[in-house]
């Protein structure tokens, strides 16, 4: 009964949040695009026609076609009006419906982010737990050095090194593209290594804190074996900060993959957003920002519910 009410109240709270996020993000991204220097008709024409065909006449044509000479407020109101009807409009550059572009690009980005996260957890969880069980031990120090190393190297460099090792020299995997599961491995590994560098430390700290907590001593005193203490109490307690951190990381990751997407020619949303900003493709920027904003809301919801599942006491105190 309690479980259920928690679920619905969380959902209702987040639904209100979603609507607020949609409107605020739409207005802010619109305002920011307006504030950027440069004439947007010229930028859009450049994005469409390329430097061999783009000229002042094509920019003027774009201005008329898209109604860029209308007052800014009229343009914003018309976007909000369409949004109320769940219509994100069309891309100024490609002319295709934003919803369609987002579906493809968001799908590829989520796939890459999810795979990257999975790789990072496969590395970070064992490494973090091993390091956290013996803080200050040789493994802890070694994993700290590795973490600093992978955090310090730009993702771009990690990607190129992996391409050289796994694709060019051994030909085990393809260099770049997106046509099959084998294409996902290298970008996911590039992402995963960078993420694991931080999350392994978060896990290590959470585990080491749990290991030194008084309740752990109590559980050992009451007669539980060290193995059972670890699996029943330590990991459960250590999981809380880790889940919260991973949730934040995933959202950050989806927009943070820009470089990895361009290095590996992956048709994702980060790459698309950067191009949309360069091309002053306002509807596309708004649509992308909106999608990312809503995803934060959904992720928060998932993190809330997961944390509640791990530690049901939280909702009573809240």
């Amino acid at each position, binding site marked *: 009964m309690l479980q259920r009410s928690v679920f619905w109240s969380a959902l209702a709270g987040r639904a209100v949040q979603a609507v607020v996020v949609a409107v605020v993000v739409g207005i802010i991204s619109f305002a920011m695009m307006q504030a950027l220097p440069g004439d947007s008709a*010229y930028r859009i024409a*450049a994005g469409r026609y390329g*430097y061999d065909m783009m*000229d002042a006449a094509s920019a003027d044509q774009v201005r008329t076609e898209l109604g860029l000479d209308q007052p800014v407020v009229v343009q914003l109101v018309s976007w909000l009006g369409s949004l109320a009807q769940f219509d994100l409009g069309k891309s100024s*550059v490609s002319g295709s419906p934003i919803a369609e572009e987002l579906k493809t690009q968001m799908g590829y980005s989520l796939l890459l982010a999810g795979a990257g996260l999975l790789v990072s957890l496969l590395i970070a969880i064992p490494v973090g737990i091993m390091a956290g069980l013996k803080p200050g031990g040789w493994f802890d120090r070694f994993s700290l050095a590795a973490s600093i190393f992978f955090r310090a190297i730009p993702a771009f460099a990690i990607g*190129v090194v992996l391409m050289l090792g796994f694709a060019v020299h051994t030909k085990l995997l*393809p260099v770049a593209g997106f046509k099959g599961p084998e294409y996902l491995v290298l970008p996911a590994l590039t992402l995963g290594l960078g993420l694991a560098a931080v999350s392994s430390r978060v896990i290590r700290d959470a585990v080491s804190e749990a290991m030194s907590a008084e309740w752990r001593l109590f559980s050992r005193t009451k007669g539980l074996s060290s193995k059972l203490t670890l699996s029943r109490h330590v990991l459960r307690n250590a999981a809380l900060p880790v889940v919260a951190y991973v949730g934040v990381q995933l959202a950050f990751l989806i927009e943070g993959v820009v470089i990895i997407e*361009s*290095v590996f020619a992956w048709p994702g949303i980060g790459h698309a957003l950067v*191009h949309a900003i360069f091309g002053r493709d306002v509807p596309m920027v708004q649509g992308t920002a909106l999608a990312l904003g809503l995803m934060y809301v959904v992720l928060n919801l998932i993190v809330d519910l997961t944390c509640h599942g791990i530690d049901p006491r939280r909702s009573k105190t809240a």
Partner: protein
Amino acid sequence: MFKPLSIAILAASLFASPIAFSADKTSVKISAPWEINSYDPAVSGFAFHRLQVMETLVDADTKGVLIPGLATEWSATEDGMSWTLTVREGVKFHNGTTMTAEFVAKSLITALAKPGMLKKAPIKSIEAKDGKILIQMEKPFSALPALLTHNTTVISAPASIDAEGNAVAAIGTGPFTVDTFTPPQGLSLKRNDDYWGDKALLESASYLATSRAETRALIAESGDADLVFNLDPSGFAHLKDVDSVTAMADAIPRVVSLKLNASHKFLDDARARQALSMAINRQGIATAITRFPEASATQLFPPVLSEWHDKDLKPLTNDVEAAKKLLADLGWKAGDDGVLTRDGERFKLLLRTFPDRPELPLIATALQDQWGEIGVELEVSVSSYSEIPKGHKDGSLEVALFARNYGLTPDPIGTTLADFGKGGGDWGAMGWDNATVIDALDKISQTSDASVRSENIATVVKAVHDELPLIPVVWYQHTVSVAKDLKGYVVDPLERNYGLSKVSWGK
């Protein structure tokens, strides 16, 4: 004894076969920097044309000679005011619709309404009549057939456009049809078995847009793509040593040049522009940055554009002392910090360029240094390339650095007319109206008489060379990496066509 072995071999070959045979030998993979954003030929015609999904009415061979495409013949009336093109019979679009003159006219009218090559011709009307296309002109324009080779004039099926006029599919007539399209990165193609001409030798092809040059070089080396276009200088040098590919470079009519605002008070005298040209060490830039020393420009139009290249023209030279003297003659004196001043004003210019062609910002900084030697202070702004046409229009542009393709069509008159004609052009002269040149360009565009043409081309070339409204820096080389076993690939210097239908695998 025999059986287990043969089973093992069979099993091994089953595992090996997808990679070794079927995938590699009936398909070709292409990688290039250009993303394909849309189905609209005005936006993505370059890709659909190069990949042979769509075709033009007039075609051109690798020497730039016009040959029949979707039109079998074309001719103009005596006065040059009207063109008639005969539409090829028995051509089917990829969706099975038969191509008629009406559909062709509709496709051209759509193209004319959007930015593209047809806009460069004085076209009054386009209509279909008795299976032919009739194009009425406002004034004679002899290069119309050459413009009709351009990728913004490709013919697409009526079903490519929805009721609101949006491009919703890429339905052409070429030897390949679109299988899947994942904008902006990928396009995969299938052979069109109903093609009207010689059918493609391979069953399928795929295209991957890879914006980063480092990735493209690695893709070429690993064999993930068989044809890789536009390699960066270091990637090209490296691929020359890789056994599995052939790295080719071919001169193309693209030129890195500086556009100068000739109405700017520092630049309105031709001697000032000549001095700036003399201060440029083109050989150094071509050796160290673009890495093709033979491609340092001695005049605007490169040798590959044979009709417009004049072998007897005195080459542009690097002479810092002569440059300093020219500027001294114009009243410029070196100030305390070495920068020239005149009437209390410093010789300071702002150069606009863009990063889409990675060598441009590098060349800009080299120029900053070289012009510094003669006391000209150059500030470099790297931004969107649209800042250049914008600065041309509002008059704020001082200097711009870009790469201009004079080979968009086999006859560059459409481009040169736009660049050096009346009022100059966004990517051409600025504040430089030369009546002789304008008159000569008009004559070239209207005549089909070879001697009148060459005489007037010589006039234009000489005036542009002497007065330098544009200062050429280096000519371009088109670089391609081709898998060793891929047969039949020919570099197209006009970058119109990848020639995929003619490539095949062999030893």
